[in-house]
């Protein structure tokens, strides 16, 4: 039993509250990724689970046991740090064995467990080396090994890949996922990188300003972002956000005075102000008559498989109505073009203009399934 | 004050860890200093039978005492003499070492070891060299017509202690000047050279101004050294003589208090010295703060 329950957790530094009451239930063996911009409180939350920060309010349970008052060493967790935090004066073997020694294991047990973990991570040739004699990727592996060898109730990983170069990061990302699946240990992983978050997580926690804005599977977060923040944070390029006003049967009135009527979604009552969100990959070029929107192209980025057309909603005032469309790579488009575009059915999102919360009552039930293909495309970008 | 992001939660342990240091500090530093302070307001006969609270009488007496004035003056001359002699010599040597490349390490080794020589030993070494009857330096001076005798001549005695004290301090200053020179960006000196500045001009317009923080720091350190650490040099050689000519403040405290048993005056002198150390320490730390902001 090594589920983790975070209940109503708050954190104050003096008078400022940085975590405003977070609830997360993590099932045994689940891989949870906490993602958010820097300063959102994700690391603080992880460190509270680890016992490195005190919990101002609320409780944290690991394996059914409230750990609020336990030392980190007593919580049966292992942690991987951003800079690895390997003990520089100890060999790889001693780095991995240190926790076991403190736990009082016998020398033979220690040797057996370190040996097994080292084999799993292909670290055997390096056991006698000091951390400074290892490459970045090897150090990362030792840090993983130090966590694995303890066979803890949970792994806590604090941006473990951000010190690696791009290529190694992709490789280690896969390795971490496979390792976690093979040992089946609950993992709590913090990152600011949405690709890492999407690829690794069983479930995502998107944090913003000390609040967990959405907790769901990566696909659900992508397909039905709960707030404008989540919508803008997950997905690249970010979702287009257009302020609209409901115009009854005509659809939604855009800032340029035109109306648009997205399909496969309910419309808010007339006069209600809202924000219309459309991902760049969900607007396609069409012939002029069928267009929902017109894009006044300002800049074009050709990425090979795709072409990104950046610009403004035609007719919108300067500085408003920014719009990006992801077009097939073969599309011919130039700055100055006026591009007629249509929103794919069911791919429009509506958020409250004031709170930014998703107007979920307007969603039609069928939508989630359709998001699968575009999601895969978005991640490959 | 800085601590770590993660700290340990024990309540008693930090006190236990600090206990030895604080106990020694209290028993052998703060308590005696307090005693010196108290004593400086008391008059006590040499046998300790009678003690009387006399307010600032000890200080009053001290400040009109011509012997104390003499001691102050001697300390000033001595400190400036030691600071200037050892700093200039060390700077010249450091500049020379900077020009040599392969041999720099060997020269450094040959120049730094006097740091390890005790001030008392340094005093004895020069005392021997300057010995009026058999010393080699008086012999050499005699050839140019100078009759050296530090037993009678106030000037000779002062020169002896200044030379002995400076000799030991050169290595310390040398190391800091070498470090200071190494910290000057090479590009700056090269730019000046391209602008046509010769070595001498470069020294006065670039190198010396860039070294000024180091020089100032060393000046303070050398004054502290000359005022306090040279007790042994004086005690091992001239013992403050002849005729009080090398009786620096720390030596006088010792002589008046420990030998002369004039406790009130000695305590007042101690307090004056503490004020001087505090002032010098504050100056030194101001300098460090400024350097950190660089």
């Amino acid at each position, binding site marked *: 039993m090594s589920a983790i329950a975070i209940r109503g957790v708050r954190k104050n530094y003096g008078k400022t509250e940085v975590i405003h009451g977070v609830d997360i239930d993590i099932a045994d063996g689940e891989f949870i990724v906490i993602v958010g911009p820097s300063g959102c409180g994700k690391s603080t939350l992880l460190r509270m689970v680890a016992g490195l920060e005190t919990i101002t309010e609320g409780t944290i349970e690991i394996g059914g046991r409230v750990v609020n008052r336990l030392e980190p060493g007593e919580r049966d967790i292992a942690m991987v*740090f951003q800079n690895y935090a390997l003990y520089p004066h100890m060999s790889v073997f001693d780095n991995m064995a240190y926790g076991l020694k403190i736990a009082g294991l016998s020398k033979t047990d220690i040797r057996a467990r370190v040996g097994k973990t080292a084999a799993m991570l292909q670290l055997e040739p390096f056991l006698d080396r000091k951390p400074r004699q290892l490459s970045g990727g090897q150090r990362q592996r030792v840090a993983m090994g130090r966590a694995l060898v303890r066979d803890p109730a949970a792994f806590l990983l604090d941006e473990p890949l951000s010190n690696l170069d791009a290529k190694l990061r992709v490789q280690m990302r896969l390795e971490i996922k496979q390792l976690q699946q093979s040992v089946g240990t609950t993992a709590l992983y913090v990152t600011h990188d949405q690709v890492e978050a999407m690829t690794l997580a069983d479930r995502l926690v998107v944090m913003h300003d000390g609040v967990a804005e959405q907790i769901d599977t990566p696909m659900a977060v992508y397909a039905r972002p709960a707030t404008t923040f989540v919508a803008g944070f997950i997905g690249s390029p970010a979702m287009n956000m257009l302020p609209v006003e409901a115009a009854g049967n005509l659809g939604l009135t855009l800032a340029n005075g035109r109306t648009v009527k997205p399909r496969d979604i309910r419309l808010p009552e007339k006069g209600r102000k809202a924000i219309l969100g459309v991902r760049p990959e969900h607007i396609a070029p069409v012939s002029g008559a069928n267009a929902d929107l017109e894009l006044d192209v300002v800049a074009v980025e050709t990425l090979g498989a795709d072409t990104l057309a950046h610009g403004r909603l035609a007719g919108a005032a300067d500085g408003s109505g920014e719009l990006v469309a992801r077009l097939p790579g073969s599309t011919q488009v130039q700055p100055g073009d006026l591009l007629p575009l249509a929103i794919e059915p069911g791919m429009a999102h509506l958020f409250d203009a004031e709170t930014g919360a998703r107007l979920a009552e307007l969603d039609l039930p069928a939508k989630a399934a359709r998001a699968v293909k575009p999601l895969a495309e978005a991640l490959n970008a | 004050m800085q601590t770590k992001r993660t700290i340990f939660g024990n309540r008693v342990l930090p006190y236990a860890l600090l206990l030895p240091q604080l106990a020694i500090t209290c028993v052998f530093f703060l308590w005696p200093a307090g005693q010196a302070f108290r004593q400086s307001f008391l008059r006590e006969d040499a046998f300790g039978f009678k003690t009387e609270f006399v307010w600032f009488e000890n200080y009053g007496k001290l400040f009109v005492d011509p012997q104390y004035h003499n001691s102050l003056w001697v300390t000033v001359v001595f400190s400036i003499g030691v600071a200037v002699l050892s700093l200039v010599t060390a700077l010249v040597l450091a500049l020379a070492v900077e020009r040599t490349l392969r041999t720099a390490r060997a020269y450094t080794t040959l120049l730094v070891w006097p740091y390890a020589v005790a001030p008392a030993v340094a005093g004895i070494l020069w005392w021997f060299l300057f010995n009026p009857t058999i010393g080699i330096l008086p012999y050499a001076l005699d050839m140019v017509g100078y009759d050296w005798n530090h037993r009678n001549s106030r000037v000779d005695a002062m020169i002896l202690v200044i030379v002995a004290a400076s000799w030991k301090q050169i290595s310390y200053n040398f190391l800091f000047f070498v470090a200071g020179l190494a910290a000057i960006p090479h590009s700056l000196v090269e730019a000046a050279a391209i602008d046509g500045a010769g070595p001498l001009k470069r020294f006065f317009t670039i190198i010396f101004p860039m070294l000024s923080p180091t020089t100032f720091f060393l000046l303070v350190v050398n004054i502290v050294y000359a005022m306090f650490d040279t007790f042994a040099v004086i005690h091992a050689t001239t013992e403050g003589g002849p005729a009080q000519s090398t009786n620096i403040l720390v030596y006088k405290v010792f002589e008046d208090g420990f030998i002369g048993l004039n406790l009130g005056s000695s305590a007042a002198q101690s307090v004056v010295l503490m004020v001087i150390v505090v002032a010098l320490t504050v100056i030194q730390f101001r300098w460090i703060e400024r350097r950190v902001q660089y």
Partner: protein
Amino acid sequence: MVENRPLLNLLSHLVLIVGVVIVAFPVYVAVIASTRGPTDFMSGLIPLLPGPHTLENYRRIVFSGVSTSGAPPIGMMMVNSLVMALAIAIGKIAISITSAFAIVYFRFPFRQLAFWMIFITLMLPVEVRIVPTFKVVADLGMLNSYAGLSIPLIASATATFLFRQFFLTVPDELTEAARVDGAGPMKFFRDILLPLSRTNIAALFVILFIYGWNQYLWPLLVTTDTGYYTIVMGIKRMAEVADAIPQWNVVMATVVLAMLPPVVVVVLMQRLFVKGLVESEK
């Protein structure tokens, strides 16, 4: 070096050679004097070439002492100096590293006060509080003892600050990793912090050993029993007598022995010595 000026390079070497000679000359003369017989100093000039009495002089002072000066054998004084220097160096390092650990890794009431109390010791050298400190040591019955020679000198603000400075550069994550591994404060201190401080400890040891060995005023104050004389203070007693009946050869042999251990330490551990010297001033 910016440009090649052969004349200036030559001048540099010349200056350095003169410097080295000036620095070494007093010691050279002392070494020479220690190899001569007593009659060589009766008149005229200090000899500048070695004589044949080296072994005889050194054997005499190390084992039997100079009878006329009432001083004990130098061998014993050297042992006293060694004990004092080691006790001071090790003592200072031990109490300073634990103090710095407490100040950096814990938060507790009066932390600031403790820091300032240690800081104040910088401003109270022995020289300014001779008489009352002597009284304290006398009242505690520590005169003429190794404890009296060393313990009052082992408080050290400089060493504490050096360790504090170093601890502040140790990454927080190492502490956190150790805590997650289940290490308490003392385990962390012993297994992680101490090994990481090795170089600093060694550098500081070099400086403090020299400091301890070279103490003069303090042993002068607290020892009256010749059995506790240290060599650096013992020289003075011998030289005083030597002034009346010049026994320069044995005085200089003593001088050579008094400076040998610290000088050897500096020369052999030059790198550590420079590090210790420069960093303890930060």
